[in-house]
């Protein structure tokens, strides 16, 4: 473990990033990524996630501080050497040319080929392997603009993968993806990490990041915090991450909750279990606290006629056939 800390693949020292002189987005940034580590960069829109990622791989100039890649200052690498150390997947998806999947992924071999870009057998097999890996092996001749968001993102990642760099940097790779595609993509990146690569990616999805990342970088109030997801959990940073917006972090279930204002509390009883759970989440969505001994009560039941909900409060009793009508009623009452 100490080995990991002494030889980071990338180390940022007192880095300042931003676009205008004297107006840094982030400054005094000290971070590192060890070999075979997966780091998720978390932060709200406009806090400088993309800027940080671009600055640390040399796409944007640093305002201050230094970046060491594999022990040597970033600027000491020529572009080709740098391209052999770090690959990048942009968050920009517009303006991609309509070239074929195979042509696109092959571009990833550029830093390793000669001036004519001639491909050896090894290059070709790497490309086909990567395409198999991302399950796009049967899409070789498909054009990029004929792919779904998930397929296109996997192809972009395959391109970065064949660049065969110890570090991969990805800017919001899971944006635009549905849940299965999101998990598939994270699984893919975790696989690369298990194969020894270091991965840095930015995301808004704290839940998946907490499931797979070795380390989080959390941008919060102009500061950047570094640590294992659980360390940051203990520090309580998640609770205050979105503190201005009525969103709080529920440590018990480790996810964010929207709790703008509590409208009251309701006791919930009955069966079956799953109907109870769903009713509970509906109440949460509507801003009610589920609590035993509350003045209002909801009794859930199930018979051959279907589910039923009986709400008793203020000495009135109302019954509902589905959660939707229950919810409409509660909203009207308030």
């Amino acid at each position: 473990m100490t080995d990991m800390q002494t030889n980071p693949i990338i180390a940022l020292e007192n880095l300042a990033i931003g676009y205008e002189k004297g107006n840094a987005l982030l400054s005094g940034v000290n971070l590192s990524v060890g070999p075979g580590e997966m780091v998720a960069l978390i932060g709200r829109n406009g806090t400088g996630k993309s800027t940080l990622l671009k600055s640390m791989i040399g796409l944007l100039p640093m305002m201050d501080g230094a970046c060491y890649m594999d022990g040597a200052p970033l600027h000491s690498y020529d572009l080709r050497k740098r391209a052999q150390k770090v690959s990048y997947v942009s968050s920009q998806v517009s303006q991609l040319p309509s070239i074929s999947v195979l042509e696109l992924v092959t571009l990833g071999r550029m830093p390793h080929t000669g001036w004519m870009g001639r491909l050896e057998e090894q290059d070709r097999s790497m490309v086909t392997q990567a395409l198999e890996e991302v399950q796009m092996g049967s899409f070789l001749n498909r054009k990029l603009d004929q792919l779904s968001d998930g397929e296109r993102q996997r192809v972009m990642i395959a391109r970065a993968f064949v660049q065969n760099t110890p570090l991969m940097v990805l800017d919001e790779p899971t944006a635009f993806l549905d849940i299965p595609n999101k998990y598939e993509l994270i699984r893919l990146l975790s696989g690369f990490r298990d194969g020894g690569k270091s991965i840095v990616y930015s995301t808004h999805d704290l839940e998946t990041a907490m499931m797979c990342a070795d380390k989080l970088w959390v941008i919060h109030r102009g500061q950047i915090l570094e640590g294992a997801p659980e360390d940051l959990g203990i520090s309580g940073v998640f609770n205050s991450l979105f503190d201005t917006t009525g969103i709080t972090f529920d440590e018990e279930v480790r996810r964010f909750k929207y709790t703008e204002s509590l409208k009251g509390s309701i006791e919930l009883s009955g069966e079956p279990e799953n109907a109870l759970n769903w009713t509970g989440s509906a109440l949460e969505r509507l801003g009610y606290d589920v609590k035993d001994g509350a003045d209002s009560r909801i009794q859930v039941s199930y018979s051959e006629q279907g589910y039923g909900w009986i709400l008793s409060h203020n000495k009135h009793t109302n019954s509902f056939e589905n959660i939707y009508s229950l919810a409409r009623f509660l909203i009207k009452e308030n």
Partner: protein
Amino acid sequence: MKIQTRSFLIMGLLVLLLVALALLDIRLGSVRITFAEIIHHLRGSEHLSEQQLIILNKFRLPRLATALLAGAALPVCGLQMQTLFRNPLAGPYVLGISSGASFGAALVVLGAGATGIVATWNLAVAAWLGAGMVMLLLLFVSFRIKDVMTILILGIMFSSGLAAVISIMQFFSQAAALKSFVIWSMGSLGNVTGLQLQIMTWAILPLLLLSFLYLKVLNGLMLGEEYAVTMGIRIQRTRIVIFATTSILTGTITAFCGPIGFIGIAVPHMARFLFRQSDHKILLPATMLTGMVVLVLSDIISQMPGTERVLPINAVTSLIGIPVVIWLVIINRKSQSL
């Protein structure tokens, strides 16, 4: 069929077509020279009369050579511009180079006074200087400005500005001078002979060869400059080399032949459609070859076989280019690679 085999097959067919068109191009004209005579002549035997020889060596072969050079070079510039700016409408003229050449030509022709007669040499030198001036301005700008789209907009502004100045000059010029200038601006492949042709050849061939050194880089640029940098491409240097090549190629051709419209934009699209490839290793030679075929064909059409009249080449290339682009855009959008 494997895509590579297909590409070589199409290239072979294009070469055959080019040879056939080239022979036809030499044969056309008021003085009769048969195919057999041309072939014998090209193989070194003496079958031609004095008059035929002069016509062949002083007029028809130089015109063919000019068509081949311009036909290869303008579309290559267009391809490079389309890839660099990632814009299917970019072409050799977007940088304002040809407007610079026109400005130089206008200064000489319209300034020549009532006769409007100017030696081709003066015209070519002036046009070349005009193009060079714009090129220097452009290179200066591209050292300063990071964003390639800004450069594109500036190029278009240079063009429009120079066009405005030229129209003012035209407004105040004498009728005869105005006519010579208008004729120059319609383009001609027939005015380049002797030393001029040599100069043009030496300006164009090395740069066409140079463009082959940038095949890999052009491929890398397809994903945009940001990705290109992360794949090891020195973007500033690449941009300057591409601007300089395009400027010299376009400037030289415009100086000697006048503006030749549309093949710079249309031919790369034709090549993409024919070869169904976006790999510049295929696309660049394909574009050169297609361009030569198209310009030689345009030259044949411009001579209106069977008549004594000759159409301006600029009009012919446009009339060929426009329907092709429209067809590609509307009917065959999927085959477009940009």
